[in-house]
């Protein structure tokens, strides 16, 4: 905890610096997902009608889109987090894992703000409070570990192979389409379901929807799979990062 103040300063830097020199400033954090939501809702509920059960599509979509945006933004920015601090890494000793962690915490602030928008939308669309909503922080905890673990892998690998940052955009796009963010899980063709089940983001997104919209607890087998997956990725990612960090200053 010696580095607590530094971590706070780094998170503040990420947040403050990003929207300097823009008129709307930090409001962009809320505006971008809202604009996304509007476009996607128009496309997928008017042009292409994706069934979303009894829930209005806009709500169905946003409960999946908010956590997905957090995942994608965190991973894509965290991948660059080590090399974008080259000048520090080659001059001063800091525990290097502080860079991806600070980036993700800054994105988490964004996430919490978009969650407020989600809450407003839920109220507007008459979704009532359910006890299962209290489980959301547990889902978030493992969701967060997963993001952190992946970011440790990618940010360290990116120091040695800059190919990572180029491929990550495509990878995240594909990942979004194989995750039921825009569509319900029921639309996945039966033959593909076993493959889709390997994706840890599927149970995470489904669990958010279950607990927030439908008042049911997560489907346990798949949720437990996501928990185990996240913890393993986190532990391995951290070890990989620590092991590689010794060579950052040599190659960066």
């Amino acid at each position, binding site marked *: 905890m010696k580095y607590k103040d530094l971590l706070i*300063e780094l998170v503040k830097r990420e947040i*403050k610096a990003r929207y300097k*020199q823009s008129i709307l400033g930090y409001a962009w954090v809320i505006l971008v997902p809202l604009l996304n939501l509007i476009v996607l809702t128009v496309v997928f509920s008017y042009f292409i009608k994706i069934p979303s059960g009894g829930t209005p599509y806009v709500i169905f979509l946003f409960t999946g889109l908010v956590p997905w945006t957090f995942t994608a933004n965190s991973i894509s920015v965290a991948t660059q987090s080590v090399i974008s601090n080259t*000048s*520090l890494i*080659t001059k*001063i000793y800091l525990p290097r894992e502080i860079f991806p962690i600070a980036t993700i915490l800054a994105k988490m602030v964004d996430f919490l703000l978009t969650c407020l928008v989600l809450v407003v939308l839920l109220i507007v669309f008459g979704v009532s409070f359910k006890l299962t909503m209290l489980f959301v922080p547990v889902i978030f905890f493992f969701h967060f570990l997963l993001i952190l673990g992946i970011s440790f892998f990618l940010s360290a690998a990116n120091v040695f*192979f800059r190919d990572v940052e180029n491929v990550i955009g495509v990878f995240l796009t594909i990942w979004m389409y194989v995750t039921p963010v825009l569509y319900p899980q029921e639309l996945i063709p039966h033959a593909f379901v076993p493959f889709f089940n390997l994706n840890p983001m599927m149970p995470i997104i489904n669990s958010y929807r279950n607990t927030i919209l439908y008042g049911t607890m997560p489907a346990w087998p798949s949720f437990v799979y996501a928990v185990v997956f996240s913890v393993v990725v986190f532990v391995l990612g951290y070890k990989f990062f620590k092991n590689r960090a010794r060579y950052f200053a040599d190659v960066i």
Partner: protein
Amino acid sequence: MNAIQFDKVSKKFRKGKKLLLKEALLDMFKPEKTEVFWALKDVSFEVKKGETLGIIGPNGSGKSTILKLIAGVMDPEEGRVVTYGRIAPLIELGAGFHPELSGRENIFLNGSILGLKNSEIEKQYMNIVKFAELEDFIDTPVKHYSSGMYMRLGFSIAVHTDPDILLVDEILAVGDTNFQKKCMTVMQSFKKRQTAIVYVSHDLDTIANFCDEVLYLKNGKPVFKGDPQKAISKYLNENPQQ
């Protein structure tokens, strides 16, 4: 008491780093290993509290590598590097500055990077601003600073961290005379306060005046260590063009 201890330290780099995946993969099937280059070979020295060690040598002799090893950003392949206390690197001043943030915000950011707690920075805040002579511009984003202002702020933060070890790399060469004088005064006062200083420079006059001992490096190997005058004359003999 020792502040820095180098015990038979060697550091190697791989020649021609394999940064492309294809090369790295092909490399695995090659029988001979990548050629290595020893940036430092078998270097031992110690710096006591309050002592100043100068390091001289031609370009590429391993001077900056020593600073990086002391700062702890690199690990040696062989040998041991031990340091005691807080290290302030006066290398590339303002390395952690964010151009879009104001001087004030950067003081807090950079201070915490150098290991200060928030409360400590608040205590030193006015001194830092005054020393950097930036009272009127402290709320301006540092991207609008002149390079002199930028450097003054970086220097001011670093020297207000109350370091036990100060690493200095050629910074005096960049500022104007006024700034250089100021730096020298501060460094003298650090010496009195028992701070260990490692000073890397090509400015042999300052080295001669300021250092207690000088290490002369050539191709990563220590050639001479001891009396500054002797080290410098040895260096000049071997590198007449200087």
